[in-house]
């Protein structure tokens, strides 16, 4: 057992939820409460097991750590090849935190097909964790797809009234993107085989390839499209509000908290190192789309009457900021973007959770149905307020650190005006989020039913408070996180810069070649 | 040359038979007429096989024709049985009127 945890810690973290899912399938279908508790227990256990990842991770060391490598399909050069750097470490931790939080919320609020629900969540967790640690493109693609199916069912079975439409839309959008990515992966691997005579899908091998001209552009676009749909970058965001509105609360938390981040993560992990030249050429476009996303998301969010839709559009806006940071490509802006991914996961997760708390009591998410409930549900109000302040970037909370780092980092890049535009978005987010709080919690209490609202239950409180604690922690001690991000970001920038230099020095060969 | 008849004449006749067969199979609407057209196509192939066999001086061509004739006979028996079965239902073997399935 010790050896397992020592040498295969990453694999244990990734596959523990899947093992839990298999265990659940052995239970009778009617054992709802057992299924609920087991699923929650497994996710907590996974969180506990994942803590050593954080402690054993060597801060300040670039490159991947805690690696494992086993041949999977040797004939095709596909390996089970996993490892962590600062970027994946943070998102893995975010995943292992948010999954028990969302399951804890579901403990009291899901009645239908509990066993299936729990299985779907645990499989989803394995899919997300696997995508985050995979260093082999084929393996990554497998996990990436594994992640889609449970979310499709979570939205489609346990969702709201328009759930079938929303789940189909979600599935088809994300799937179409990833199929093109699959073809691009295959193409890169074939080029590698032609050049070296060996099959490999390992990221390290494939990043040694150099692509030029149109080929690189097309390959980059295939990858970028898949990830941009997931983020989602404007104008590919239309699936998101539907998916969020219809998804059950826990599904929204995971969707906003982790799955959207995987788009940005995939871009940083795969698209950038594989096609640095094209990525740099398209970076200005990315930044512009990010700016549009920030402003557009904020304005549409302001116009919403449905709380969940409002938070969903605020995600479009906040992730636009992340995209700007990636497009600017300075050390600081990149670090900020990665930190902001975590921040957004925490704050939006908490917001969806608390909207879910209100919805479970009143069965409506209309802003107008609430108002003046601060006195009725003080604890909910306090938690919601902290999440809101985190989301709009109040100093002392995590959101401020992330946003500020991105804005400053972008200001240091050649694209200063993005920073200005993004700052507008931050101000707009303060407007619509505070309006939301005002209309829900403070305005005069006109709807009589709201007097009978009950405050958070202990389980809901624990779930939300966990996230609040993390918000404060990152807000107060951001360097705990940033120190882990920086080496990863710097090595990313270094590799991109080195390859760009090499590319421009060589006489741009038409056919790709492998640099040893 | 196959005796007094040049190979090209045999091939022309076979090609014409095949063309007539294809046209008949595509244009006719009565199942039996379609089937007869298909038989024409097969016999066009037979004629070409015999012609080539004689011109190239191998017997394979003629031997193959026996196989084809045997298969054509088997096909006829299966086909006619199917026509009878469908006539019992619809009282017609006009393929335009047999349209339970979308076609």
């Amino acid at each position, binding site marked *: 057992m010790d050896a397992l945890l020592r040498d295969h810690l990453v694999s244990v973290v990734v596959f523990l939820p899947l093992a839990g899912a298999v265990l659940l399938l052995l239970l009778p279908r009617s054992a709802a409460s057992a299924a609920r508790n087991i699923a929650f227990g497994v996710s907590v256990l996974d969180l506990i097991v994942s803590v050593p990842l954080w402690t054993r991770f060597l801060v300040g060391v670039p490159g991947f750590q805690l690696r494992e490598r086993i041949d999977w*399909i*040797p004939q095709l050069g596909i390996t089970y090849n996993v490892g962590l750097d600062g970027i994946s470490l943070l998102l893995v931790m975010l995943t292992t935190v948010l999954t028990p939080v969302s399951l804890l919320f579901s403990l009291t609020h899901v009645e239908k097909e509990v066993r299936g629900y729990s299985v779907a969540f645990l499989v989803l967790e394995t899919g997300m964790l696997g995508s985050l640690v995979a260093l082999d493109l084929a393996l990554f693609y497998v996990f990436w797809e594994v992640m889609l199916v449970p979310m499709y069912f979570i939205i489609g079975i346990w969702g709201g009234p328009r759930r079938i439409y929303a789940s189909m839309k979600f599935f088809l959008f994300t799937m179409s993107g990833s*199929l093109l990515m*699959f073809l691009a992966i*295959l193409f890169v691997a*074939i080029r590698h085989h032609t050049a070296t005579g060996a099959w490999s899908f390992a990221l390290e091998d494939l990043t040694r390839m150099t692509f030029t001209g149109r080929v690189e552009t097309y390959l980059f676009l295939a990858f970028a499209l898949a990830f941009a749909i997931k983020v989602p970058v404007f104008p590919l965001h239309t699936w998101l509000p539907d998916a969020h509105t219809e998804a059950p609360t826990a599904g929204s938390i995971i969707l906003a908290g982790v799955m959207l981040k995987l788009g940005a993560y995939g871009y940083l992990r795969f698209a950038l190192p594989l096609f640095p030249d094209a990525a740099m050429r398209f970076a200005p476009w990315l930044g512009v789309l990010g700016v549009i996303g920030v402003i557009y998301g904020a304005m549409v969010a302001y116009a919403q009457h449905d709380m969940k839709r409002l938070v969903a559009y605020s995600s479009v806006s906040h992730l636009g900021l992340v995209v700007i940071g990636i497009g600017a490509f300075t050390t600081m802006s990149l670090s900020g973007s990665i930190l902001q991914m975590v921040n957004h996961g925490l704050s939006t997760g908490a917001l969806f959770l608390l909207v879910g708390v209100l919805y479970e009591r009143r069965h409506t998410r209309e802003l107008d149905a609430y108002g003046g409930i601060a006195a009725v549900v003080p604890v909910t109000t306090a938690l919601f307020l902290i999440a809101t302040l985190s989301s709009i970037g109040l100093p002392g909370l995590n959101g401020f650190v992330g946003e500020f780092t991105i804005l400053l980092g972008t200001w240091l890049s050649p694209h200063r005006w993005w920073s200005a535009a993004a700052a507008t978005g931050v101000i707009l987010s303060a407007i619509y989020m505070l309006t939301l709080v005002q209309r829900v919690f403070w305005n005069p209490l006109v709807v009589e039913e709201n007097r009978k609202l009950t405050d958070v239950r202990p389980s809901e409180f624990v779930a939300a408070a966990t996230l609040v604690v993390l918000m404060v922690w990152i807000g107060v001690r951001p360097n705990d996180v940033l120190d882990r991000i920086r080496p990863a970001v710097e090595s990313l920038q270094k590799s991109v810069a080195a390859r760009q230099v090499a590319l421009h020095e060589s006489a741009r060969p038409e056919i790709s070649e492998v640099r040893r | 040359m196959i005796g007094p008849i040049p190979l090209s004449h045999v091939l022309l006749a076979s090609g014409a038979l095949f063309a007539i067969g294809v046209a008949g199979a595509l244009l006719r609407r009565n199942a039996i007429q379609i089937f007869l057209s298909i038989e024409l196509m097969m016999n066009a192939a037979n004629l070409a096989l015999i012609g080539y066999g004689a011109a190239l001086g191998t017997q394979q061509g003629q031997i193959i024709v026996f196989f084809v004739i045997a298969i054509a006979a088997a096909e006829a028996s299966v086909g006619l049985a199917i026509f009878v079965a469908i006539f019992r239902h619809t009282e017609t073997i006009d393929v335009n009127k047999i349209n339970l399935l979308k076609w």
Partner: protein
Amino acid sequence: MTFAFHASDWLLLAPELFLTAMGLLLLGLSVALGKTKEDFLAFLATVSVGITGALVAFVATRPERATPILGGAFVVDNFALFFKALVLLSLALTVLASARYVGAAPYPGGEYYALLLFSGVGMLFMASGNNLISIYVALELMALSSYVLAGYFKAEPKSTEAALKYFILGAFSSGVLLYGLSLVYGAGGVMGLPELAKLLASASRSNLLMLGILLILAGLLFKIAAVPFHVWTPDVYEGSPTPVTAFFSVGPKVAAYAILARIFYVAFAKFHADWGFVVALVSAATMVLGNVAALLQSNVKRMLAYSSIANAGYALLGVLGFRTEWGLWGILIYLLAYTFMNFGAFTLIILLESKGYAGESVSDFNGLAKRSMPAAVVMLLFLLSLAGIPPTAGFIGKYYLFTAAMKAGYAWLAILAVVMSAVSLFYYFRIAAAMFFTEGSPAKLKSSYALSAVIAVCAVGTLVIGVVPQPFLEVLKSCVLGR
């Protein structure tokens, strides 16, 4: 040319001979037993297929199979053995899936199983065919049995109509194929594939030869249901008894791919520039039309018919990629995957079919998850695999086919195939949504041991090839033509 017959030739044909004998026995028993003891007949048919499989395994160990047999008419190379195994697999699945269905129908079962076995004999010969004329005869044996199987429910107007359509278009296509054969024969007076390859290597292009090759291609494209020779497929699939449809969608198609690959890889390789272009266009048209038409269907059998047309288009990528070993591997692994996943999906329809034509409309799948969770999950697995989502067999198959296409320089076709796979998600997931997201009839599903076994085999095959493909890929490596 001399015909050399050896006694050992018959030994190598033991599987075919045995299956023929069992088919005749079943036919005789059917006359004697009529509509009684059908379970026994089904059992007998299953055992026959099993023993034939053992005989194939026995043949695989014989050293004599290195040389072609019966004067070069047949060859028992690894490629042939792979397809024989695949044909027998689909045959065994069909017999098992038919038992309850045929037992409930008012027609004698013995004839049904006999026809299935005869059709199987034809397919086994097709897998080995090494000479255009032996291939043609084998193809006809398979086809004539299939026509009757399509119309087996002769009191059902739909079934006889399917038989009529299948027969007319099938006979037409074999006429076209035959005429193509005669023209190719005219090029040099030989019919054996290796001899043809030798002859054509030094021959120049002639218009008649090209026409011959094209007509042969057209005849074979009909059998695999590629556009524009696909029109029979939806009607025949919808009208035929469902187990027969399941059989049509795998067995004959697999066998047709065997001869398509063998003829074009071995004999006509020299003129690949000419037929390659045609095959590429046909593949593109097949993928597009199959997937787009499937979107519009509300009958699941028709939908799966169009989906199988689309799948034929993907598999043609393997024919195009024949210049690297990936093309052949792609065809083999994809057809193996396809047999499991497609047959599995059709078996689910049989399971739902209680009386008449229920189980055919998408709405019959409503709420299947409530009625039987395992059935719904397994169907989902087949749908995911058909759509090519990892980790399932369909993904591995597509992986090989796309690689083959890209290696052969048909990147545009691979892109089209991927786009079309995305389109296919629409209709596959309509069934998934019906099963999991909607309410349906509360009636319990009635399964039988045989049906459960078929579904289990298909599900395990689909999943295992997807998760641990390595052993299967090792087998593929040895499946080279001529060895």
